[in-house]
């Protein structure tokens, strides 16, 4: 079997491992070890996250006190903050770069990059990624991309300022706004590098999950984290190339005089342009064909992490393991069919709007199933409130709040009045912004001991959670009402609009809450950095978890396990089984008398009135996995 050959080959490699010397550069900089690469992604992601957060505080100041001057703004922003006020064009730049950083650099690379890299090899029982070299390239492309994007903020004409969705014609010619000049070029370069990074990573994740699982780790024994990372990588692989093509065509339009997106334009200062026959709507179709799956690329890893964290800390098997996988598959599939709900009012054919409305509301069903399954997992659990668990519960709450407003916006009739208002801002910041950040933070608190061999401070973690949780709602909940009152988003000043004057105090409240949220993140940063060096030493399995990563030694070694890679005998959610004294059974523990890793754990009969069947196996899951096995030729 191909699998066991790989296994031996890796074991052999591991023995030879002690012979080659590791230098500082090969260990910390150009490392090919997935654990180090995941740390690199995490640290870069956190730095980018703080940059994005800082930008949001800057423009929130403007929105809250539009008549005030803040002399420090001139100090840090120079000509963009003249007289202590943010220049209206630079405000747009801040909004754009904040969005780009948060969506791509923090929640795509920072989240997927960190946890897919850390957990895929460790949880499936592999020595490393399928291609460690490509994995290293993936990080360095991401790093270059981050550098280019950050540089673009400091150039004379300002960063890209047309919103993170960079709709042409606004983004196609610097005549329309100064940020659409060099700033936009750098943005496009950064995104092309980013897509390369994302594809290199994604191919690796898929290959590793499909080919490098340890003995006994069948697809129906994969932790839900791995299922989520796997499907995320598939989504990225199918959708990012479309953004790449959209970006390339935009580059052609900008620099080589083509007219893919441009037609019938008269520009102030240039006159009638000679671009004829293109359509700006084409760009939107291409952009949102990535853009919508992108939302799930962000969210699914967070949901996967939460599934694992909640099951472990509620000391209960995740409820409806198969249903969770089916709903992930459903979300992944449907996410490719709903992009048009971002475009109801672009003037596209109203019939298309109807189709996209139906498909969009269908996607709410698997999302609802996931929520109910989380609730059922908590029900009659034995909840250990670790900081990771708190963030997991916070994610469920934010996912509910933000998800429900998706039903409003997915409805074309309601979208007429809510489109491009603060309602949209509230919706996506809750459901994919805050919820995904909470998933990421849950993951950081939960796997910090695995990454750094030390524990983070719990008390600071609690303070961090409660401040962040409260602030997230304080910032985004009032925005629903602003949106319902018809306040458009992306307005740099509201003081010239007396009809919106009643929102002045709300804007101030939101800004104060945003500052509070930022302060809470500083507490996190302090805790994070301090714990790396001076945290309490971690035990082997601090959360008493079932998954394989906790069987690897605390001290990182190349190849993950010193001897054989453990064999898997059961699914990852054997928590609190009534027939066993201990409330968890790691995946590598065989049942009594069990010598071979068998496909299905049905050995021990369980006498429990509430559990209709003995384990998570049932007819549905058997059918599902039979189909999947066919498709992917699983063992």
């Amino acid at each position, binding site marked *: 079997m191909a699998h066991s050959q790989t296994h031996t080959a890796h074991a052999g490699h591991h023995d030879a491992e002690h012979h080659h010397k590791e230098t500082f550069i090969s260990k910390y900089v150009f490392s090919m070890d997935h654990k180090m690469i995941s740390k690199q992604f995490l640290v870069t992601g956190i730095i980018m996250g703080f940059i994005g957060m800082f930008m949001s505080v800057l423009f929130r100041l403007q929105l809250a006190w539009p008549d005030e001057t803040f002399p420090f703004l001139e100090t840090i922003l120079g000509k963009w903050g003249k007289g202590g006020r943010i220049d209206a064009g630079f405000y747009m730049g801040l909004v754009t770069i904040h969005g780009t950083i948060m969506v791509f650099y923090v929640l795509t690379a920072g989240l997927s990059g960190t946890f897919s890299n850390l957990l895929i090899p460790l949880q499936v029982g592999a020595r490393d990624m399928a291609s460690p070299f490509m994995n290293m390239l993936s990080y360095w492309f991401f790093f270059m991309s981050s550098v280019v994007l950050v540089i673009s903020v400091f150039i004379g004409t300002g960063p890209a300022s047309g919103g993170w969705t960079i709709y042409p014609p606004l983004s196609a010619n610097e005549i329309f706004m100064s940020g659409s000049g060099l700033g936009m070029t750098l943005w496009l370069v950064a995104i092309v590098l980013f897509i390369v990074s994302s594809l290199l990573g994604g191919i690796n994740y898929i290959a590793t999950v499909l080919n490098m699982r340890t003995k006994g780790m069948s697809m129906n024994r994969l932790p839900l984290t791995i299922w989520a990372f796997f499907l995320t990588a598939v989504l990225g692989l199918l959708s990012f190339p479309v953004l790449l093509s959209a970006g390339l065509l935009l580059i052609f339009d900008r620099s080589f005089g083509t007219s893919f997106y441009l037609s019938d334009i008269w520009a102030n200062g240039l006159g009638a342009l000679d671009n004829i026959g293109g359509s700006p709507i084409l760009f939107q179709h291409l952009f949102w064909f990535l853009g919508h799956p992108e939302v799930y690329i962000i969210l699914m890893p967070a949901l996967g992490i939460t599934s694992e964290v909640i099951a472990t800390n509620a000391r209960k098997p995740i409820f409806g393991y198969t249903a969770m996988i089916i709903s992930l598959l459903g979300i992944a599939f449907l996410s490719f069919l709903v992009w048009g709900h971002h475009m109801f009012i672009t003037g596209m054919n109203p019939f298309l709007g109807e189709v996209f409305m139906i498909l969009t509301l269908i996607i709410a069903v698997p999302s609802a199933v996931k929520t109910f399954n989380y609730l059922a997992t908590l029900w009659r659990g034995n909840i250990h409130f670790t900081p990771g668990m708190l963030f997991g519960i916070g994610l469920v709450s934010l996912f509910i709040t933000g998800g429900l407003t998706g039903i409003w916006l997915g409805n074309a009739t309601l979208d*007429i009045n809510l489109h491009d208002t603060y309602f949209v801002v509230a919706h996506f910041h809750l459901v994919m912004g805050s919820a995904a950040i909470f998933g990421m933070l849950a993951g950081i608190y939960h796997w910090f001991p695995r990454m750094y061999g030390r524990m983070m401070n719990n008390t600071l973690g609690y303070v961090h959670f409660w401040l962040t949780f409260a602030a997230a709602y304080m910032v985004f909940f009032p925005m629903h009402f602003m949106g319902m009152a018809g306040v458009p988003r992306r307005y740099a000043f509201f003081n010239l609009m007396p009809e919106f004057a009643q929102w002045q105090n709300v804007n101030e409240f939101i800004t104060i809450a945003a500052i509070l949220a930022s302060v809470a993140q500083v507490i996190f940063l302090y805790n994070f950095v301090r714990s790396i060096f001076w945290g309490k030493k971690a035990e082997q399995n601090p959360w008493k978890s079932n998954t394989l990563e906790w069987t690897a030694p605390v001290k990182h070694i190349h190849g993950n396990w010193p001897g054989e890679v453990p064999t898997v005998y059961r699914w990852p959610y054997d928590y609190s089984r009534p027939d066993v004294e201990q409330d968890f059974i790691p995946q590598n523990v065989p049942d009594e008398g069990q010598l071979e890793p068998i496909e299905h754990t049905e050995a021990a009969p369980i006498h429990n009135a509430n559990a209709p069947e003995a384990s998570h196996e049932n007819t549905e899951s058997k059918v599902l996995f039979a189909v999947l096995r066919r498709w992917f030729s699983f063992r």
Partner: protein
Amino acid sequence: MNLRTLIKKLTSALTVLLAVVLFAPSAYADGNVETGKKLFEENCTSCHFFGRDGQGPALKDVTTRRQEAWLKQWIKQADKMIDAGDPIGKQLKEKFGVVMTNFEWLTDAQIGDIIAYLKTNPTDGGAEPAPVVDGGKEVVTPDSGKAEATSSVKSLINFLIVLILIAVLIIMGAVFNVLGLISRYTGIPFSNPHKINAWLMIVFMVVGLGATFWEFKVHGKFALIDNAASEHGASVDSMLMTTLYITGFVFVVTQVALFVFAFLYRHKPGRKALFYPHNNMLEYVWTIIPAIALTVLVINGFTKWSSITKKAPDNAETVEVFAYQFGWNVRYAGADKKLGEFSFNLISGTNPLGLGVEDQYTKLKAEVDTNLRKNEDLFRRMHTIPDPTSEEKEEMAGLAQKIRLQKAHLSRLAALDGDKKMFNKTADDDLVLKEIVLVKNKPIHFVFRARDVIHSAYSPHFRMQMNCVPGMPTTFWFTPTKTTAEMRGILEDPKFDYYLYCAKICGAAHYNMKIKIRVVENDAEYQKWLAEQKPAFAPAVEAVPASTPAPADTDTAKTQVMAQVTK
């Protein structure tokens, strides 16, 4: 110098001084300040403030900084002045990155009004009326100083709140630290995190739900969920209420379940979780119930969306709304009740919407032709400069681009020559306006166009939004049901007005791109208003001297170039 001449000089000086003192205020009066203010608000406020820079420079004291003749020409043809090498114009372009729109459709008298308004030293202030010149004396807006003081006190308070929050955090940290130390030395755990966090969950739920209901009470009243001012708006509102009830119910139930479960099943010594991996019946139940609820919403939304987007009724009046960076123009049909043809190729300073008016076309073609020749000539001569500086190289690249565009433009214009369909005279009497007036209970069919980038026409009270896409006219029709006056009564806000906002990011001054919509009671009122409006291409407008760049400036630019060439 004898005494006589001295006295003579003194008296003449005095006379001049007196004349200045006595007649200076009346110099303001060469334009109508009120009209100027209105024109200024319609055309200029999206890019200009008085006290600070916006998309364009701050206009405080602009009438003393710049000469009136300069201002007049600049407002009309900023780009031509820059092309002709105007030093101030170049500086401005350098500084702001963009060129000011050519307001060629404004008459000299109208520009005079605007300048007269500028001379009154108005200030920014949204709703507050700008100070008005009253018999030569400036009336200072009352309370402006006080308002400033209170707002700075307010911001001080806000910063104090932030400071206090930070202080509370630090104190909390210190207390936790001390408690931690005590428990470390005594060996007694000072707290049970499971208990504390479980209780915090309950507190959070209660406070959170309370705040939610409070917000519905306080801010919910601003939400546009009733009083729609259009026929379809009422059905949008009922859809919204249905959705609000369904999602609101789910919201409360699931959030309460989440926090209560977290509280009830917190870890206690001796507790063991229930091993309960799945229940297919439950899965079916919570797949099917949301599916049913969503089906109800989909069918509801589907029918409403189709009825909103169906074809406009025959009695609907078609009005064109034209979006540009950063403002709106509106086009009403003239006496022939028909909107004429248009093409972006025909857009010019005097024809901002690019309407198919033949003499406008002829004039534009001649103008483009002249400019092209001039640019080619300049380019040819600049080409002979032996060692061009990087600045000159840039200028030549810009010229080359302009020449390319103008050539292409000219060939497209030539193709329109004698186009019977384009120049069928229907556009000649169209009205190009800065205000939208609708009639109550009469369907209105908007056609949206954009000049440069994507804009979005958003008027929340009518529940209307539609993107304006260059090259792709879009439409939206509806029937207004409440006049502006009625809405003022309903909202108890005498200052209320319907507005059309731009909701799609369109550039730096996106936040200030709006136009008033007025709904009148009946057709008679509307016809009366319509009769007062002047057609865009009435002889009065055409009497304005044709837009030729100031020859003097061009000459200086040429001599400069020649000087460089000979050097």
